[in-house]
């Protein structure tokens, strides 16, 4: 136990700064996991009451966990919500643009097809602040843009940022965490100091500083690149990198703790005795066993990332107009909160739903992969 805590943290830490918006109790419980004995296949299997029948077709721990997850109604429901969200964000806009009647504008006296007026940047000057209708499913905003199209674009942005952040987070966190846990030494020392700094300093402040100062010219440098630079998304690259930089040490810490326990176990010893190199042990034996902790931590972190991206865009530092982001939609609508509350409340509601879905799914995954963490 003392080994795992290491000499780095002189007092119990219950949560890390910058984690304020993480779903209930999760960071703390994950830390507890790190200090608790290893999650091993034997223990997980041992919990099951085995009838002779079930012994015939034995399940791997992963199958066992997935079976538990499938039984968890709330987690599966949240998974459904997330799947719907992702599908809507990716396939929604083209379908929405295709399916719609032509519209005869009274102002310009021209016929506009749905593919134009249902684009998230298109403005219809005489259709401002409308409620939901057959033409504009969720209404229009203060300059006559389709709110449903903008919402789907914002959803896409939130998923894209979350994906980029998680990729960097998992890559850096697993690499550094495994090396620090397996070899110890200076990597471990540097990681510990780095995490101390990150935990003692709100990550959002760092991102605001980074994006606020370097972001002003992002459009000039990245504006010509098709996806990254288009539609005022240029700053998102900075936002994603900033977010990833502030979260990976936490992932590295979880991975390090798990690695410390794994490397003492017999299968690693057996591999070493049979002549496996360090590289083989790490890649073949350690990293596959980190699957559960990485998937739990990153699911919970996605909720955080989505909130942060929306928040940064809300502050005017993320996506720039005419682009769209859930945060930008809220920020655009706050001025009209008195007369058109729908425009601010609708994206807020969507944000809350997706954040809750990821939090609950993370909780469900934790219960499924580590049954003992349940009360």
């Amino acid at each position, binding site marked *: 136990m003392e080994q795992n805590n290491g000499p780095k943290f*002189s*007092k*119990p*830490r*219950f*949560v*890390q*700064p*910058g984690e*304020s*918006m993480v*779903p*209930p*109790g999760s960071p*703390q419980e994950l830390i507890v996991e790190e200090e608790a004995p290893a999650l091993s296949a034997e223990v997980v299997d041992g919990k099951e009451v085995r009838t002779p029948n079930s012994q015939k077709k034995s399940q791997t721990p992963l199958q066992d966990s997935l079976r538990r997850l499938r039984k968890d109604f709330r987690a599966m429901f949240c998974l459904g919500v997330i799947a719907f969200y992702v599908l809507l964000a990716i396939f929604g806009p083209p379908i929405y643009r295709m399916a719609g009647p032509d519209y005869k504008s009274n102002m310009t006296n021209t016929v506009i097809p749905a593919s134009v007026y249902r684009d998230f940047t298109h403005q219809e000057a005489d259709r401002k602040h409308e409620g939901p209708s057959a033409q504009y499913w969720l209404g229009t905003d203060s300059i006559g843009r389709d709110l449903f199209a903008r919402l789907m674009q914002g959803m896409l942005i939130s998923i894209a940022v979350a994906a980029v952040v998680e990729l960097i987070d998992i890559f850096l966190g697993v690499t550094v965490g495994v090396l620090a846990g397996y070899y110890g030494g200076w990597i471990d020392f540097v990681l510990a*100091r780095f995490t*101390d*700094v990150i935990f*003692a*300093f*709100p*990550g*959002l*402040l*760092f991102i*605001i*500083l*980074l994006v*606020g*100062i*370097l972001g*002003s*010219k992002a459009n*000039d*440098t990245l504006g010509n690149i098709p996806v990254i630079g288009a539609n005022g998304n240029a700053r998102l690259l900075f936002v994603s990198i900033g977010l990833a930089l502030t979260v990976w040490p936490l992932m590295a810490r979880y991975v390090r703790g798990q690695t410390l326990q794994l490397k003492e176990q017999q299968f690693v010893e057996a591999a070493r005795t049979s002549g496996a190199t360090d590289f083989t042990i790490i890649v073949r034996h350690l990293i596959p066993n980190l699957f559960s902790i990485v998937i739990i931590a990153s699911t919970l972190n996605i909720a955080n990332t989505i*909130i942060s991206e*929306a*928040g940064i865009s*809300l*502050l*005017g*530092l993320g996506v720039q107009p005419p682009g769209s982001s859930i*945060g930008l939609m*809220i920020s655009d609508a*706050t001025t009209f*909160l*008195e007369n058109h*509350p729908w425009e*601010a*409340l609708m994206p*807020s509601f969507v*944000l*809350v739903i997706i*954040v*809750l879905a990821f*939090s609950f799914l993370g909780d469900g995954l934790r219960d499924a992969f580590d049954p003992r963490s349940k009360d």
Partner: protein
Amino acid sequence: MLKFLIKRFIGLLFVILCVTFLTFIIGYYAPSNPIQIMMGDHPNKLLEAQLKHAYGLDLPPLQQYLNFLIRLLHFDLGTSFKTIGRPVNDIIGEGLPISLELGMWALLIQICIGVPVGIISAIRANSWTDTISMGAALIIYALPAFILGILVQFLIIWLDNTFGWSWPNTQWGTPWQYTWTDIQYKLAPILVYGATGMAYFARLARTSMLEILRQDYVRTARAKGLYERAVIYRHAFRNALIPLITIIGLSVGFLVAGAFFIERIFSIPGIAGITLDSIDNLDYPVVQATTVVLAIGVVFGNLLSDICYTLVDPRIKAE
């Protein structure tokens, strides 16, 4: 104990040093040239050189950083680019009292409401009081602060319209004054600002108290026939507070990050609001200064909770 505190203090100095270095480096590599923006439509090579010299921007980067640090040690945060010649101290001096006031009240609310709610929930675990308060805490905690802010603003506007009140939903009253109008201004932002932390404190207090109530010494206290009240308040409650104290420092960190949203949504001219304005105006000295001030606030909060922690928990001395 002293040794422990000194160790923490050195660690925190290291954090501050890292922060100043980061802010400096980011500012140094800022892509836009503030001097050119300052001169506006009348570019003038000589004036540019003079201004660069006046702001110390013609020195090598390391020298600039050292100057920045030395000035910082003299509590001199430099001069603004936007309003030429205006000391940054002046600008921060306007926002800091507001942010401090906001933060102090939010922290007080978190502790004074969050902790008792959590403790009561733990004592009455699994009753309807527990279910309702923990359910509310869960929802508040899961909501991003800015969403909560917008919901509250919407509620205020709705109440104003329905009952003909004139309750303000943005701006801040006079700092540190509490007339009825000031309270009207300040109440909503403070409540929203404190809400996330309040929910967090409540949840943590409940967990901590439940843990303590399972301990042997609580059973002993009950077994020897102490009144339930004595068991809870004299034995359990005091021990349950220990983990909460470490949270206070971290809570300051949350508050600093949350300030940006609260001050933006409620249009409060605090230090976070100044930071955002200065970012728009490319006024880097102000951004650097506010970042350092906010970071020092976080670090100070951490140190404060370390000190409280050592005072409360004698076991720390063993280290």
